[in-house]
């Protein structure tokens, strides 16, 4: 609970600095890179988590990996986080930052599950509809699950827009069962 509070604070300050310096896009791309590297390399994450390894060592490791790949500001932020010995929260901070950036730009990620892959036309139709409802720019993450039979399920944060055939059938079943003694 406390760690998430800390992560939000660091992420917020990074976002604000990036907006001030007008390099939000490049910083965000850098952070995306660092986050995905951390995610795909458990060894690197382990090293950062390890309290036995000195922060100088961690900084030099991070510099060696990222210095040539990311901007100066981004590198400074990584060093700053390590210096404040919050490197164990680094990944969390980065994810929060990316999330906050999305909020700032009015972008929202939507998980869409379909029974079969949507055609481009269907995608743009769905985008049009959802953007009208949510009033935000939409970034789709598609996945296919034949179990929903037909239609689609779109999830935005906690809210689910369920237009799947499976759910409709469940609703019909519920309506038929309501008031019957078997529910007791």
């Amino acid at each position: 609970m406390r760690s998430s509070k800390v992560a939000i604070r660091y992420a917020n300050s990074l976002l604000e600095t990036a907006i001030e310096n007008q390099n939000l896009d490049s910083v965000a791309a850098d952070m995306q890179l660092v986050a995905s590297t951390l995610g795909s390399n458990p060894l690197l994450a382990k090293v950062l988590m390890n309290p036995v390894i000195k922060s100088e060592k961690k900084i030099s490791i991070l510099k060696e990996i990222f210095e040539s790949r990311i901007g100066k500001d981004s590198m400074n932020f990584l060093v700053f986080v390590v210096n404040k010995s919050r490197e164990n929260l680094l990944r969390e901070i980065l994810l929060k930052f990316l999330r906050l950036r999305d909020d700032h730009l009015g972008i929202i990620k939507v998980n869409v599950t379909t029974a079969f892959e949507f055609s481009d036309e269907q995608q743009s139709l769905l985008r049009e509809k959802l953007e009208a409802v949510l009033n935000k720019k939409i970034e789709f993450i598609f996945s296919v699950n034949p179990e929903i039979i037909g239609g689609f399920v779109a999830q935005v944060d906690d809210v689910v827009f369920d237009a799947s055939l499976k759910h409709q059938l469940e609703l019909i079943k519920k309506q038929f069962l309501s008031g019957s003694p078997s529910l007791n």
Partner: protein
Amino acid sequence: MAEVRPDEISAILRKQLSGFESEVDIYDVGKVIQVGDGIARVYGLTKVMASELVEFPNDVFGMVLNLEEDSVGCVLFGDSALVKEGDEVKRTKKVASMPVGEAMLGRVITPLGLPIDGKGAINTDKFLPIERKALGVIQRQPVKEPIQTGIVAIDAMIPIGRGQRELIIGDRQTGKTAVAVDAIINQKYTHTDEAKNLGIQPVYCIYVAVGQKSSTIAQVVAKLQEHGAMDYTTVVAAAASEPAPLQFIAPYSGATLGEYFRDNGMHALVIYDDLSKQAAAYRELSLLLRRPPGREAYPGDVFYLHSRLLERASKLSDDLGGGSLTALPIIETQQGDVSAYIPTNVISITDGQIYLESNLFNAGVRPAINVGISVSRVGGNAQIKAMKKVAGTLKLDLAQYRELEAFAKFGSDLDKTTRRTLAKGARLVELLKQGQYSPVPVERQVVSIYLGTNDFLESIPVHDINRFEKEVLEFIEVKYNHIFENIKKEKQLSDNIISDMQKAAEEFISTFKKSEKVL
């Protein structure tokens, strides 16, 4: 032969299905991150409300009790084995509510309003939330009508009014439930035409069983049925085998049901049997939800748990229909210790208490009510005038008797007045004894107490008092029935009634003695 045409069938099907809308269903979800012991921690559900009902898979419902920074603590109303980590949780956007209405009478239901008596579905379309705010000052008025329990000791000395909260407290096996069940059975009278003519409004009863054995609940239901009391009674059952969350909400759903009657200008009596078990269930929940424990490991808000429940009992103002909800909470003490946490709390919330003691019970005084420390703070206003008049001296006489009782045990020489006080007290105690499931109508109570306090029993041996009481009431019913009728109608003791009572008693005592001599 008449045939059913296929197009007819499809028309019917279409009609039945027409209520179904196949639009996009929008709902909020979360994910279970931890589950067990009837508690689930849910990630997500960011917009959920406190005490909102949420739906887990497999038709398990839960209620949100804890709203934390990044998770939500829910209690489950079903088997927690049916819920797994990672399951999807849906908001229902409803606070926990239950069906209410007259259709619930005569039924045994779970705290969520589902019938469990095998009599089929309950047809009611009215729903009320289980947790409701108690009424304010403006909506209320003082208690003024009596609720007759049919138990002489209570109706005479610890009278209960409609809208009152009277605690029944005592150790295990002292007859707490018996008092409550007798009170329910006695309400049968209020549903008769005779009561209607006398202006006595019917009282609907709700018996909430919390954490009891299912066999005990079945016994109570059977007894109520046997005495024809189920017609106006609902039993809300959360047996010991039910999950703690259900035991915790059971009294609230009982109160909700009672409030339906109250708010519609009717009268209801709700019995919470018992609140110590509810507090224990709530303690279990709170500890599992990691709320900090306080005294006796109860959470800090255990007082509020009971005060918000009992505060819902009330007598409505005439503008709102004048309905009432009377509450008889029951608390079980351990070894007569009323200074434990829960008993002191509930004593301070209620408008009086009825103490039942195991030594009285064992000495054969049943109902085992200790009238010395039992009180009713508001019920006196509700007593009928006749009862007030005869019972006034009763309490005094019994107090004097108890004071002298200790002396008498020394066997020292006692003067005449002391002996008389003792003899009278012993007869009064005998007079207040009463069998289970045999409530006494108020007019009969008035007569027998009048005879007791006015020294008509002096010549009757103590062991004969019970028989005498029974027979004299029968005698009056047969020969001087107008005494009962007049007390019922006038509700006070006029000089006429008093002289008639004296005449009848003297007449009966002379015959009673004679039969005694033959023996």
